[in-house]
């Protein structure tokens, strides 16, 4: 990969400015689509590219667009920029440094499904990125690339930014829609899926910021060009966020399936003081931890799944041998306890009781019984909640118990003996 497809600010500094973006093929795909392509042709090229949603679920984007009914109006495009998964900071960099590519991708998606309004939902903490993005949107309006009768084609499109206010759950697409409608940010039952009844009960496409940033180069260069990167099932490039115990944490854009976790850690400067890796969280707190024996797993959706975890949002948190796994698991469970929206009892209560158990174990008052109870609590949540948050919350518990149970036993060995006496 000689040039970045997404993190293009690394090749073209100041690409956040319209003039620089346009000098680097910016809005060329948008101009071509509007003047030379039918909406369904845009859907087709994205479908053929095999682009999968980059927010976590990995659902094929073009397929999602093709579910939008043609004859119901209005339709909406909603961009998910709620980026709140611990360890994820890729959309942040895209919004700060390459906002026009996000806008162009949003516009192409809107044209493809014939929506005239798009909302970009950013987490409330992205106040500064929202200013950069708004400035770019204003530039695009002023250049006649957004608004009414765009480029004289008769097509109209408005893009609005909507700021959240601090709630992880709003990254879940139906909760995001509820939040955007001014309701509590709690998930809704599916079906109906957003493609049929989304925002204001109208057909709605929801895609992640990074997903849409892939669209302009796909429309400009074609599906085959995009498929030169990645694997058959995981085409294209992906931004990998690397954080934790490495020397150079940051975003690394790589073709999917070409490199291993071990190589990714090397790119991130290796571990601090060259300590051995103990475990890797491939998708922040939400996917099962992988032990060091999985370091040669390839970085794509199917390989990560085969290894017993998920690629998700590709936020790799690296833990070395100085990290106490029970402490780390407690941090993650604390996150889910804080972020549970309270709608479903198993998640609301389960995260609370799991947290109590971690506090008990870490304060030296735990027993083996408490360790087993953690698994029991997690198993009482799994598969019993409305949305995936409740499911995610079980993963730090069950996966650390699976791979690192001796660390739990060490924590309770002395106190456990006392409690049992």
């Amino acid at each position, binding site marked *: 990969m000689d040039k970045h497809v997404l993190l293009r600010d690394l090749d073209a500094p100041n690409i956040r400015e319209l003039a620089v973006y346009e000098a680097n093929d910016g809005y060329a795909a948008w101009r071509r689509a509007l003047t030379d392509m039918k909406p369904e042709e845009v859907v087709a090229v994205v479908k053929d590219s095999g682009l999968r949603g980059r927010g976590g679920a990995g659902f094929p984007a073009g397929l999602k667009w093709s579910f939008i009914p043609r004859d119901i109006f209005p339709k909406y495009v909603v961009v998910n920029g709620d980026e*709140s998964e*611990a360890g994820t900071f890729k959309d942040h960099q895209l919004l700060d440094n390459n906002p026009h590519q996000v806008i162009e991708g949003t516009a192409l998606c809107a044209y493809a499904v014939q929506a005239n309004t798009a909302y970009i939902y950013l987490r409330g903490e992205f106040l500064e990125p929202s200013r950069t993005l708004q400035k770019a949107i204003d530039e695009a309006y002023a250049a006649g690339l957004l608004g009414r009768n765009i480029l004289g084609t008769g097509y109209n499109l408005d893009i609005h930014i909507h700021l959240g206010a601090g*709630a992880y759950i709003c990254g879940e697409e139906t909760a995001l829609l509820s939040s955007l409608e001014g309701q509590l*940010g709690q998930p809704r039952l599916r079906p109906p899926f957003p493609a049929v009844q989304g925002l204001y009960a109208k057909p709605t496409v929801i895609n992640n910021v990074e997903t849409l940033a892939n669209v302009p180069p796909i429309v400009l260069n074609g599906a085959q060009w995009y498929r030169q990167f990645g694997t058959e099932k995981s085409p294209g490039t992906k931004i990998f*966020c690397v*954080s934790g115990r490495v020397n150079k944490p940051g975003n690394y854009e790589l073709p999917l399936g070409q490199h291993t976790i071990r190589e990714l850690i090397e790119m991130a400067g290796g571990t601090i003081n060259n300590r051995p890796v103990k475990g890797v969280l491939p998708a*922040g707190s939400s996917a099962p931890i992988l032990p060091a024996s999985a370091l040669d797993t390839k970085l794509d959706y199917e390989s990560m799944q085969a290894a017993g975890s998920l690629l998700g949002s590709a936020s790799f948190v690296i833990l070395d041998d100085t*990290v106490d796994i029970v402490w780390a698991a407690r941090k993650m469970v604390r996150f889910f306890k804080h972020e549970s929206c309270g709608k479903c009892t198993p998640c609301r209560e389960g995260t609370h009781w799991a947290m109590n158990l971690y506090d008990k174990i870490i304060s030296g008052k735990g027993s083996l019984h408490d360790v087993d109870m953690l698994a029991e609590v997690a198993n009482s949540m799994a598969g019993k909640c409305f949305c995936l948050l409740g499911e995610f919350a079980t993963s730090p518990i069950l996966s650390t118990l699976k791979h690192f149970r001796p660390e739990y036993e060490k924590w309770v060995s002395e106190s456990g003996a006392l409690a049992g006496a």
Partner: protein
Amino acid sequence: MLKEKRAPDIEKTLAKYPSRRSAVMPLLYIAQEEYGYCDDSAIREVAEILGLDPTEVKSIVGFYTMFYEEPTGQYVIDVCDDLPCALRGADEFVSHCERKLGVKAGQTTPDGKFTLRTVMCIAACDRAPVAQVNTEYRYALTPESFDQMIDELRERDGK
């Protein structure tokens, strides 16, 4: 009253959505800019503009962490102590912030200047430890740079 004082902003916000209710969060931000926090009278104002019951608006305020139900310090300092930041020293860093400000996380300094809070991941783990001061990022903080920031903020307002 917000309705008069911020009329252009409110009109501009309402025009973005086909449903007035969608404007509840942006209007709460406007109220918070004006009053510093969303107390019952601010909530009633927002509810009236949108034609909602104040109870509904209050539930929105309570649901999100960025709407304040009580007065805060002039500067709200949100320090991330979630796992990725904690792997790079955030817990020790929070203790330093507490010592420097003389308050515990969740408290406001007696002079009403600073509120210190710990928050979940704020999407800047590559530049940990990280904080936001009134929602503006401060990256790659050290105890020294934090102290300097606090001293500057104190000086800026002549105290």
